[in-house]
């Protein structure tokens, strides 16, 4: 229990710290909190009493105004101000310019590519991520913990490093490319390469969302289904899969959102041909390098709006997932 953990942890003030006579040691606090918990336990006190006891000390804790003020000021300066600069800059160009930029064939092609590749990568990650999460939670085999740790590599590895490493692997003379290219599967410098990079980048999001659900899943249900004569496939598709679907969807949405905006790992492997293998983030950079601020801003605003919608959708999914988990 978290509270008894706190009680164990707190230690008396070191001798060097001058403590006022009436100031409690943390150990006192721990004792006090235990007794308080007993008194507000629902079955020992009437609900109304518990409610009033809970409501009253809400602002007992110090630091609300200062931490909230700091949070808002910092978030405003670092995030809100720059993002509003983007939106306002896009607005000053006027709707005609905006529409012209956003509906140009090159921009539309880039959006199709970015969203298409991210969607395909998310779908592939649904399969690969579920496979990895399943194997890591259900089976014991040598190297399992190492693989478990490696799953987070795409989050820890700088995207530029991932980009040049994947390119080197899949280049026509690379470790994998030398086998794939003769088979007609060109990965590097094609849209396939973009999908490969996005599978790499999105993998941990799916595995880490599905894994805890599989771990906490009632195996009794699977065993019951099996004992009633269901085949392993039936057990998986009728019992296991429905219960991990919300987590799988959330993980895929996270991977998709990350993939749409991904830049570093993609640009090395993509080939970056306009209309063909040019992703939206690269198009923004290109426009910026040509001092086309209005164009870059217009594309970025559309991208930002879509990302924001995605974020809200993911939030809804995650809240549902959390409710299911606690239910």
């Amino acid at each position, binding site marked *: 229990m978290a509270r*008894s953990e706190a009680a164990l942890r707190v230690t008396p003030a070191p001798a060097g710290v001058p403590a006022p006579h009436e100031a409690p040691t943390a150990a006192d606090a721990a004792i006090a909190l235990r007794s308080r918990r007993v008194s507000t336990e629902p079955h020992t006190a009437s609900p109304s009493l518990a409610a009033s006891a809970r409501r009253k000390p809400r602002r007992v804790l110090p630091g609300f105004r200062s931490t909230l003020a700091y949070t808002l000021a910092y978030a405003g300066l670092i995030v809100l101000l720059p*993002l509003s600069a983007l939106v306002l800059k896009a607005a000053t160009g006027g709707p005609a310019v905006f529409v012209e930029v956003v509906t140009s064939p090159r921009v539309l092609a880039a959006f199709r590519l970015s969203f298409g590749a991210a969607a395909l990568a998310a779908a592939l990650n649904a399969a*690969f991520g579920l496979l990895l999460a399943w194997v890591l939670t259900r089976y014991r085999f040598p190297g399992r913990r190492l693989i478990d740790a490696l799953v987070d590599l795409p989050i820890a590895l700088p995207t530029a*490093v991932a980009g040049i490493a994947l390119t*080197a*692997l899949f280049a026509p003379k690379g470790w994998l490319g030398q086998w794939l290219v003769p088979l007609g599967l060109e990965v590097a410098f094609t849209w396939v390469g973009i999908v490969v990079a996005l599978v790499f980048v999105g993998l941990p999001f799916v595995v880490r969302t599905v894994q805890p659900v599989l771990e906490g899943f009632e195996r009794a249900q699977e065993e019951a289904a099996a004992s009633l004569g269901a085949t392993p496939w039936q057990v998986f598709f009728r019992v296991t899969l429905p219960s991990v679907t919300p987590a799988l969807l959330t993980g895929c949405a996270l991977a998709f959102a990350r993939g749409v905006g991904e*830049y570093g790992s993609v640009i090395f492997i993509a080939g970056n041909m306009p209309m063909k293998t040019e992703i939206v983030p690269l198009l923004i950079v290109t426009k910026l390098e040509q001092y086309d*601020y209005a164009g870059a801003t217009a594309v970025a605003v559309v991208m930002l709006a879509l990302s924001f919608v995605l974020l*809200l959708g993911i939030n809804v999914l995650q809240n549902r997932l959390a409710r299911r988990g606690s239910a």
Partner: protein
Amino acid sequence: MSAVAQRGAGRLLLIAAALVFVAVFLVAPLAIVFTTALSAGFGPYLAAIREREALAALQLTLTVAAIAVPANLVFGVAASWAIAKFEFPGRQALVTFIDLPFAVSPVISGLVYVLLFGAHGWFGPWLAEHEIRVIFAVPGIVLATTFVTFPFVARELIPLMQAQGRDDEEAATSLGAGGWQVFRRVTLPNVKWGLLYGVILCTARAMGEFGAVSVVSGHIRGKTNTLPLHVEILYNEYNAVAAFAVASLLALLALATLAVKTWVEHRAAADRVAAQGARP
């Protein structure tokens, strides 16, 4: 009997498939970084790392992380205290807002600062008048990195501190403990692993960020080049050994991040077990 055998075969098949996938997508990229870096032997490898511009890039990367990470650490602690320990209107919206930089493409994270501080940006003329450079200079790199790593600490801490509740802190406060004392003695011990985890992820991203930094850096060698940007320059010059040598430093950083993360999770799990054992 046959069902058991089938299960065994399926099990092996699934493990094999997972291993192939991990080998192709996780192990091979890592391996190729180190083999290419060392393909010409240790001499060229060390030379590439010790080259003046590589060292300047390393120094800049460390400097940027040393500013961005503490800034976001302080923010993360303040934000999670306000959000997890108090109730106020708009709290949920604030939590969503804090996640926003995660959803924004790194390129846009850089672009927004160009629009603010660039030559044609809001504050551009004023900055030019006072001869302050933000874009294509170190301050821009710091700002873009701070933006990108903004949510890391806060998003680790908020759920942890919410789960912890506020009974402990309220008890300590009612007995006269000051705010800082309460935080250090009561709150911090409960969230320290989550805090450390957030800081690790924040640091790894701060040192490895590419897209956002690329937009604001200007790629001036020896001056505004971070390690990931230096990798790109070397790679585009077809200097594979040097590019992968510098990249191997970043790969080592990633491996260290994974190691510390695994250790932190291990310690946090051990603490949970200990706490359960101590349950009265």
